[in-house]
């Protein structure tokens, strides 16, 4: 015969749970809340990302295609990862409450590591997508340049972004990245300093050209003299001014306009 479960028995069990085994009760509560919260965050993030158009942005990138092949999507991966992170935190918290972790220091450290791991994964995903997107954008910009070697530039941009993302992720995980940072420093020095040196004349022309375009001290059709060359202005762009006289077209860099000044010939 089954023992009769009376209201008193239940009450006593609950009281026992709330007093002697309170920690266990709390742990279970945290665990359940964590699971629900994780699920909720997964749903919320997915909805949010779909609403702001993330699927359209990442569509067609090699990363998205790569994880599509294993049956995932970028949105699904990120939202699930976030949900999983919340659940993992809840599990750890619950286990702590029951007092399982105090002794084993190694596991405790591993657990403290969890947020770093999560952020590193997120940085890596964003970096991969950003790199692919930047490659696409640059190659689109360079489409009118009919030079086979120009395809190297978008690839370079892509791998630069990959490298930086990889570096940030590694630093987040606490790996020593000093050597890689030096490499990055040398690389950006090469690109920016030496590039700036090489493009010095163009940059100063462009700076002068911006002024010329904004204030228009002379316009198309005016007769001017620059550098001792006189003629009618045919075209002004950011880098050069084209002056034409008697079938001769002078292409004058805009920095000359600033260094030498201009003579405007007014019609009498």
């Amino acid at each position: 015969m089954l023992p009769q479960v009376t209201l008193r028995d239940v009450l006593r069990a609950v009281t026992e749970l709330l007093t002697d085994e309170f920690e266990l009760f709390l742990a279970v509560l945290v665990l359940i809340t964590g699971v629900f919260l994780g699920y909720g965050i997964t749903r919320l993030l997915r909805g949010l990302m779909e609403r702001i158009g993330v699927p359209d942005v990442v569509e067609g990138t090699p990363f998205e295609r790569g994880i599509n092949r294993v049956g995932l999507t970028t949105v699904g991966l990120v939202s699930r990862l976030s949900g999983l992170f919340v659940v993992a935190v809840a599990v750890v918290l619950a286990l702590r409450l029951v007092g399982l972790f105090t002794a084993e220091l190694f596991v405790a450290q591993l657990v403290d590591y969890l947020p770093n791991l999560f952020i590193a994964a997120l940085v890596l995903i964003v970096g991969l997508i950003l790199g692919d997107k930047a490659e696409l954008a640059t190659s689109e910009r360079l489409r009118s340049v009919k030079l086979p070697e120009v395809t190297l530039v978008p690839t370079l941009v892509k791998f630069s972004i990959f490298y930086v993302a990889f570096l940030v992720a590694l630093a987040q995980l606490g790996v020593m990245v000093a050597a890689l940072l030096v490499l990055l420093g040398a690389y950006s020095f090469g690109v920016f300093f030496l590039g700036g040196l090489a493009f010095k004349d163009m940059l100063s022309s462009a700076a002068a050209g911006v002024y010329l375009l904004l204030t228009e001290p002379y316009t198309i059709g005016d007769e001017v003299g620059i550098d001792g060359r006189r003629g009618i202005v045919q075209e002004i762009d950011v880098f050069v001014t084209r002056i034409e006289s008697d079938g001769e077209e002078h292409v004058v860099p805009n920095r000359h306009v600033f260094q030498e000044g201009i003579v405007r010939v007014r019609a009498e």
Partner: protein
Amino acid sequence: MSELSDLLGDVVEGVDALLLFSPSGSAYDRFADAELPVVVVAPENTVDATNFVELPVEFPDLRERIRFGVEGAIEQGLVEDDQQLACAAKVFGDDIDSVTRVRTSGFERSGVYNLFVNSRAEPGVIRDVLEVTIELGKKGQKGKQVGALFVVGDAGKVMNKSRPLSYNPFEKSHVHVGDPIVNVMLKEFSRLDGAFVISDSGKIVSAYRYLEPSAEGVDIPKGLGARHMAAGAITRDTNAVAIVLSESDGLVRAFQGGELILELDPEDY
């Protein structure tokens, strides 16, 4: 059915080269390895053809399209003088559905290829201005017909051979034809009198210009008005190209070197 094959066979019998207009990849591949020289005429070289003539506008009129292709092929030296050409193009469908035969020597050149490729302004700029004019012709016709005159290229000289009718609305602005904003401004364009001056790179230099070229010796068809006369004259005096939308018959005409080169009906586009 052999009569039908003979009919087509007579058309293509003994041709020296084949002009394919906007072929699909498979259509080109079929002829790519043939002994017959093949020239592709299309807006973009999607099939990686070695002999390629870029078509700046998809002329709906087959005569214009073929004329442009043949002139381009001759100018580029892809075909010789006194040759028989077969031209395959699409007229109604999405695939090539018509074949005609053209003789290069008896071919009357209108200079439509030179208008785009050998003028001072870039071909893309002339195409953009032509598109804007066609659009203006279409839009204007719904309410009231409008006229317009665009002078493209050699802007410095054009500016010195004209004078302002009013304040230049494009002063210190940097609008280029082909910018999306130009399509928005189209309706405003039709209100402005005088000519638009556009530079070699496509910058709209000025509106409200009264052109003052010497009209001596300009030979344009009778019946066209002052706007066309001004357009013809300015292109004779300078190296510019003029594109005119007629107010009376709604046609778009292009002038170069004082001569009428091209005539299009905006309604066809």
